[in-house]
C-alpha cells in the first residue's frame, strides 16, 4: 500500500485544550466532525493546571485547617499542623485526575490529539511545532479553526516572574513553603483568593491595591463583607497605591515599593510578593495576521454572537476572545463554536453568565444589579435575606453576608442576584436558571425549598421582594 504526500487534514482544528478548547473539540466530535486538538502544554489549560481547580483545592484545604483551629466556640480545641508540601501534592493529585480525564474524554470521543504549539500559515493551514529537541513540526490543513489559547498573568514593570521571590498566581499555587510575609499586588478576585489562602496558612499578608477598595466590579455592600472578614483574618490593606518595584532588605527579605498617584512612596517588608493585577490574552506566536485576523487594542480576538472572528471559518473562544474571562464562559463559547460549525443554530444567547469569587465568604453573582436594571429602564423590585436570619447558616457558624435578588417590578421576572456568604458559588445557580427560564419572583418564592438549607435564603429573598418574607422584616 502506498500513500502520497500526507499533510494531515482535519475538518475542525482546535488550538488550546483549556475549558474553551477541549469542550469545543468534544462537542464537535459528537457532532460527527473530524476534530484535531492541539495543545502545547497541558490538557485542561490554565483552569485545571494553574487556575480554578488548584486554587479551589488550596482554598478548601487552608480553610479546613483554619476552621479546625478556630472552632473553640463549638468546643473544638485544635492546633492543626499544616504540611504544605503534602497539601500541594494532594492538589497535584486532583489536577492530574482531572487533566487525565480530559485527555481520556477527548480520545473516547474520537478527537485527534496533537502536542505542540500551533501557528497559522494562512487561513487554511497551521503549523504545529512539537516540543523538545529535533521533534520538528508538521502542518495541518483545516476547514474550520477554533482559537482557544487562553490568557496569562500580566507582568508589571519592576517585577519579573523570573525572580524566585516574585510570584504569579501559578507560582503561588505550587509554593514550597508558606512565606512569613506575603505582599499581594492587586485586590482582584485572584489576589483576594490567594491572600486568603496564605493568611489562613499563617502568613502575614498585605494587599496593595491601586483603587480604593478590593474586588472592583462588585457592589460596596458585597465587597465590605469580604473585606471585613479578610481584616479579621489579619490581612492588611493599603488602597490607592500601586507597587512599583522591590529592593533587598537587610534582614534577608525584600522591600516592596509602592507609590500613590500623588507620588507618595511607601515600602512593605516581604519574603514573597504575589503580582495578581490581571490577565492578558495569549496570541503571540500564533501568527494570527497570516490568517487575516486582527486583535483589538487589548489583544483580544473580536467575535460575533456565534463566536466567529472576522474570518468566518475561524472562531475564537474563551479568555482569548475577551471578557468575561471565566472558565464556564469559555466552555459555553466552545459549545456554540462547535455547533455553529456543525451547521446548527447555536448562539451566545444566554441572558447572564454567573461569576463566583471563592473568598471567605464567597461571592456569587448573576445577571443585573439593582443599578444595572434601573439603567436598563426596568421598574425594579429588590429583595434581600441576610444569612444571620438563616437557620442553616447559624448551624454552620458562617452568618456573614446576604442574598439579594433583583426583579422586574411589573411582571416579576427575575433579572439578577448578588449573593455573598457561605456557599454563594453554589447558591447562585438557582437564580441563573430562573433568569434563563424567564421565571418570576413568584415562581422562585412558590418553589418549595428544603429546610434547613442555605438555599432557603434565595426563596426568602424572592418573598422579600414581593413584600411577603416570613423570616425577615419586609422593606
Amino acid at each position, binding site marked *: *500500500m*502506498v500513500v502520497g504526500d500526507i499533510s494531515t487534514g482535519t475538518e475542525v482544528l482546535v488550538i488550546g485544550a483549556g475549558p474553551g478548547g477541549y469542550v469545543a473539540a468534544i462537542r464537535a466530535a459528537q457532532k460527527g466532525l473530524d476534530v484535531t486538538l492541539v495543545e502545547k502544554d497541558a490538557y485542561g489549560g490554565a483552569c485545571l493546571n494553574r487556575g480554578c481547580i488548584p486554587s479551589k483545592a488550596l482554598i478548601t484545604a487552608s480553610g479546613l485547617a483554619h476552621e479546625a483551629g478556630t472552632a473553640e466556640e463549638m468546643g473544638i480545641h485544635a492546633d492543626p499542623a499544616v504540611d504544605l508540601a503534602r497539601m500541594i501534592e494532594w492538589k497535584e493529585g486532583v489536577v492530574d485526575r482531572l487533566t487525565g480525564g480530559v485527555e481520556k474524554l477527548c480520545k473516547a470521543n474520537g478527537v485527534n490529539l496533537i502536542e505542540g504549539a500551533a501557528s497559522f500559515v494562512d487561513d487554511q493551514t497551521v503549523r504545529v511545532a512539537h516540543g523538545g529537541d529535533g521533534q520538528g513540526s*508538521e502542518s495541518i490543513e483545516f476547514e474550520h479553526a477554533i482559537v482557544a489559547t487562553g490568557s496569562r498573568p500580566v507582568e508589571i514593570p519592576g517585577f519579573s516572574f523570573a525572580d524566585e521571590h516574585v510570584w504569579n498566581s501559578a507560582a503561588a499555587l505550587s509554593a514550597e513553603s508558606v512565606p512569613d510575609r506575603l505582599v499581594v499586588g492587586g485586590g482582584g478576585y485572584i489576589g483576594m483568593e490567594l491572600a486568603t489562602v496564605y493568611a489562613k496558612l499563617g502568613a502575614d499578608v498585605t494587599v496593595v491595591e491601586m483603587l480604593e477598595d478590593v474586588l472592583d466590579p462588585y457592589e460596596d455592600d458585597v465587597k465590605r463583607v469580604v473585606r471585613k472578614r479578610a481584616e479579621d483574618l489579619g490581612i492588611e490593606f493599603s488602597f490607592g497605591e500601586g507597587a512599583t518595584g522591590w529592593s533587598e532588605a537587610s534582614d534577608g527579605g525584600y522591600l516592596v515599593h509602592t507609590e500613590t498617584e500623588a507620588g507618595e512612596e511607601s515600602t512593605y517588608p516581604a519574603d514573597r510578593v504575589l503580582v495578581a493585577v490581571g490577565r492578558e490574552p495569549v496570541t503571540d506566536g500564533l501568527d494570527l495576521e497570516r490568517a487575516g485576523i486582527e486583535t483589538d487594542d487589548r489583544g483580544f480576538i473580536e467575535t460575533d454572537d456565534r463566536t466567529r472572528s472576522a474570518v468566518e471559518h475561524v472562531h475564537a473562544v474563551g479568555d482569548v476572545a475577551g471578557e468575561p474571562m471565566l472558565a464556564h464562559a469559555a466552555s459555553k463559547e466552545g459549545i456554540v463554536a462547535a455547533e455553529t460549525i456543525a*451547521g446548527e443554530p447555536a448562539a451566545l444567547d444566554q441572558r447572564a453568565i454567573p461569576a463566583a469569587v471563592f473568598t471567605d465568604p464567597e461571592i456569587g453573582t448573576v445577571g443585573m444589579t439593582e443599578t444595572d436594571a434601573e439603567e436598563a429602564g426596568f421598574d425594579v423590585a429588590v429583595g434581600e435575606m441576610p444569612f444571620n436570619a438563616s437557620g442553616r447558616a447559624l448551624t454552620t457558624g458562617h452568618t456573614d453576608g446576604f442574598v439579594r435578588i433583583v426583579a422586574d417590578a411589573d411582571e416579576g*421576572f427575575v433579572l439578577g442576584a448578588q449573593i455573598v456568604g457561605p456557599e454563594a458559588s453554589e447558591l447562585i445557580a438557582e437564580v441563573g436558571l430562573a433568569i434563563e427560564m*424567564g421565571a*418570576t419572583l413568584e415562581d422562585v418564592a412558590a418553589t418549595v425549598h428544603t429546610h434547613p438549607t442555605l438555599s432557603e435564603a434565595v426563596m426568602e429573598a424572592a418573598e422579600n421582594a414581593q413584600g411577603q418574607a416570613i423570616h425577615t422584616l419586609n422593606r
Partner: protein
Amino acid sequence: MTVKEFRLPDVGEGVAEGELVSWLVAPGDRVEEDQPVAEVETDKALVEVPSSYDGVVEELFVEEGEVVPVGDVIISFRVGGADGASADAESGDTKPTDAEPDDSEPTSVEAESGSPSRRTFAPPSVRRLARELGVDLSAVDGSGPGGRVDERDVREHADAEGSDPDEDDATDPKPVEMDTGDRKSAVSKRGSAEGAGATTAAEPGSGPEPAGRDRTLSTPATRKLANDLGVDLDDVPTDETREGEAFVAEEHVRAYAEASARPDDEAAPPAGEGGSGVETEPTPADPATDAPGETIPYRGVRRTIGERMEQSKFTAPHVTHHDTAEVDALVAARERLKPRAAEVGVKLTYLPFVMKAVLAGLREYPILNSELREEAEEIVLKDEYHFGVAVATDAGLMVPVIEDVDEKGLFELAAEVSDLASRARDRSLAPEELRGSTFTLTNFGAIGGEYATPIINYPETAVLGLGAVEKRPVVRERSGDGTGHEVVPASTLPLSLSIDHRVVDGAVAAEFANVVMDHLEEPLLLLNE
C-alpha cells in the same frame, strides 16, 4: 422578517441555462449582499452568483450538478433576521433578478425593539427553536404570564409567517444538518425502490415508512442501539405506549434498521410471494448488526490514507507484473560495501541499489516516470527522478520523497532514506518532504512476503514493490557438461510492479522490469547510473 426567494440571474448574453456547479453557502449561513453564494457554469464561463440580500440562507432548491434555467428560484433567504440587522436590504437591489413580491402578506420588518424593559422572556430551549425556525423572538406575542414566550408561541408565529405551505411543517424544522444529517438518517434513506413500491407507492425509494414522531420513549440501551445502527428512534414504528407516549423497544429498532437497510434485490420479494413488499415483522437478527463489536472512528490520517487509496484504485486501472531477480551478485556487492558504508556512518540496505536499477529502467522507459493529466488530456513525462519510499508508521503509511535519485551516490541515498524513514516515524517530516515524487517504491519485504499488488501513488504511473531478499530454489543449467538442469539455492528478490494501464501497457511494464532485473543481477552495471 421575511423570506426572499432568489432566482438564477441572467449571467451572460443570451445564456438560457447554467449548471449549478457548487454551493458556496448552506442553510443557516449568514450572507451579505454581494457575497457569492453559488458557482454556475454556462457554456461560456464559470461565474459566481452574488446574493442580493443581507440575510440568512433558508433553503437551497437546486442540487449541485443540476442544470437550471435562468429565472428559476435557486435559493431563499431570511432577511431582517432575528438580530434585527439590515431589514431593508432588499430595497437596495436593482438587478432584474430581484425577488418577486413576497407572496405572504406584507407583514414583517417589525419595528424592532420597543422600550428597554420589553425584553423578551423565553427559556434557552425556546430561543434556540426560534433561531432554528428563523423567528424573531421580539416579534412573538408570548402567551405566558407577563408575555413569556413558550415553544408553542414560536411555532405558531413561524406558521403564520411562513409563506410556502410545504415548508412550514413546524414539527419538522429544517435544521441545518447538511453534514451530519446524511449520516444519521442514512438508513432510512436507503432501501428499496421496488420493494417499497408495492405497498408505499407514494414514497418510492425508501424502506418502511418512517413514523416521524416528535417524541419517543425508550430505554437508554435501546437509544444506544438506535444510535449505533444509525436509526432515528422517532422514525421507528411501534404500537406500544408508556404514559401515553410511543415506546420503542430494541426489537423494533432492529426490525426497522433491517427493513430499511435491505438492498434492492434482496428486498424485492420473488413474484407471487404474497407481494407484501416491505417486511415490518421482526426477522431473525443479522449477526452483523446483532453484535456490532467495537467501532473505530474512520478519521484523520486513517481516512486520508483511505481517500487516497480510493482515488488511486478507482481512477487508475491497475495491472501488476510479477517477476524475480536472482541477486547473488548483489548480495555479495552489498556485503563488500557494507563496512565501507559503516565507516562513514551509513547503514547500507538493498534499497539504494534498487533505486539505481529503477533509475536505469526509467531512463530506458520514461513512460513509467510520468503522470496522466486527465483534464488536460496529456501524459507528462517527468524529467526528474524523485522517488517516494513508503514507510509504515504508527499513525499510518507515509511516503517521504528522495529527490534527484539520478544525482546521488549509493551511500548518500542510503543515508537519506534512513533519515527520512526515522523522521516519518516520529512525525516530524515537513510537508515538502512528502510531496513531489514521480515514482514510488514500497519495501513490504522488510516485514516479510514475496509478492503483492501495490497501489499506485496517484497520480504517478507506476509503483514497485519489493519482497524479501532470501535464498529460494532456482532452476539453472547444470554447470560443466551443459546436458541438463538442476535446482539450486540462490538469493532472489521478488518484484511486484503495478502500472496505470491507461498510460502504459503490460508489455512495456515487463520490458522495464527486465531492465531493472538486469541491473540487479549484474550490479556492476549500476556504475553507469
